[in-house]
């Protein structure tokens, strides 16, 4: 017997039209019968149209996951947008690359995308256009975006606090002032 996965056929068709081919779409279900639909959109710009379509179906944005695409090997970033429509989850993936380095903000469509987009801008250094309030969420403005992804040697991170380096630095700064 073929398993029927929960979902809205018209919404699935509309989102499928934004995908480059059928391989970019998959439908799964968990052991409790909850449906999960996965779409890999042709370009990051398609997320705007997808968001408008989802809004028409009274979708709720559940989460946005940013990650580094390990398979690409060049550090490109991908975003997976998770929307809830009547308990069924629609996951929309977009990939950023040199041809498509930016992603449009969906905060105008979904107000609760605000924090998600601000977080991925500062932690994953993802460029988001047309965000209504693109200020920092967690990190101080003085820190570079994506800083937390960089490897910092322990001695640098501790600012020499565990050795005589700190005092030498303070003394040299003091001497310079004099």
């Amino acid at each position, binding site marked *: 017997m073929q398993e029927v996965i929960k979902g809205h056929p018209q919404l699935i068709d509309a989102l499928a039209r934004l995908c480059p081919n059928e391989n970019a779409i998959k439908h*799964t279900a968990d052991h409790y019968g909850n449906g999960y639909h996965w779409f890999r959109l042709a370009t990051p710009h398609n997320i705007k149209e997808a968001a408008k379509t989802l809004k028409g179906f009274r979708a709720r944005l559940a989460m946005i996951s940013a990650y580094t695409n390990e398979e690409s090997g060049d550090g490109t970033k991908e975003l997976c947008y998770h929307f809830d429509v009547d308990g069924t989850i629609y996951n929309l993936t977009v990939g950023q690359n040199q041809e498509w380095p930016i992603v449009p903000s969906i905060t105008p469509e979904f107000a609760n995308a605000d924090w998600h987009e601000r977080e991925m801008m500062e932690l994953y250094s993802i460029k988001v256009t047309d965000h209504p309030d693109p200020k920092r969420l967690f990190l101080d403005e003085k820190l570079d975006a994506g800083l937390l992804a960089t490897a910092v040697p322990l001695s640098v991170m501790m600012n020499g606090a565990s050795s005589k380096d700190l005092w030498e630095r303070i003394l040299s700064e003091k001497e310079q002032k004099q």
Partner: protein
Amino acid sequence: MSISTYTMPLGPVHVALEEPVYFHLTVEGEDIKNVELTSGHVHRGMERMAMQRTLVKNVTLTERVCSLCSNSHSFTYSMVVENALNLAIPERAKYLRVMAEEIKRVASHLFNTAIQAHIAGFKSLFMHVMEVREVVQDIKETVYGNRMNLASNCIGGVKCDVTNELLDYIMKQLEVLEPQTDELYDIFQTNHIMLTRTKGLGLLPTEDALALGVVGPVARGSGIARDVRRDSPYAAYPDLEFDVITEPGCCVHSRTMVRLREIKESIKLIRQCCDKMPEGPVCVHMGKIPVNEAFAHSEAPRGEVSYYIRTNGTDIPSRLKWRVPSYMNWKALSVMMKGAQIAEVALVLNSIDPCVSCTER
């Protein structure tokens, strides 16, 4: 006398709770006109840590995202891994998971209710609610050995079985707890002090709640019947009978009443778990880890918790992302606090049951 508008800093510590968040209030006299908040004081980089640990070790890590919702994190994390691995858990484990989750929900809701009494200056009620909560704390300590992190969930089921003697003990404790929570409901529903301080305060109209995508008792207190346990049923919830509680008032009092009524529903669910507990194993082995991605969500005491995982064929995930309920509810404060007075900020803030450490991870 003319009224001037000025910005008032509030926080970052001791605004309703001992977690740091910094408010910039634009006020006209005593009235709040606008709210902006700054967070990030306790950002712990937990998602990055999760990508350096094995799938099994992350059960322990995720249970430490939050204190009151700790069980919901290990629960949902286990579910997302099980979805990625296409793993079905035993029937008994489904009931044991629900039982632990509902015990935690009762304790969490009582804690938030107690803090509300504390902020309102009703100290004897605060102590009374915390004393009632001790009944639940005793259940946790006796059954799981811990008063906060139960360490019950694992990938494939639960770590420890609960004996029939302990199930009987839980049932007896519920008999003690239920009349006391009924009494609390009556107090919060009728007491003049609590009603004066909370009814009509911190309004979040239904349309704003929908637009902001708020979750949990904040959504249900604005009349939105949103509950993952019913909308995307998981574990043993499809087999159990419970009501999704909503209140139409959209105010601080409505959110409190949602929590107190939900305690009744949780007691009902725990009793059903004890009665219907199936026999059998409590855990299955993980099996081979594929290259996959999966999503899972559940209804924590504060609202929906979402998890997303990407596995790469090894036992270390290439990405683990989670979104906590408070993350969706913070922005609603800008609606709730408009028109409120400075002295009411702590009460309004507490009504979203905020968790800073889980928001920042």
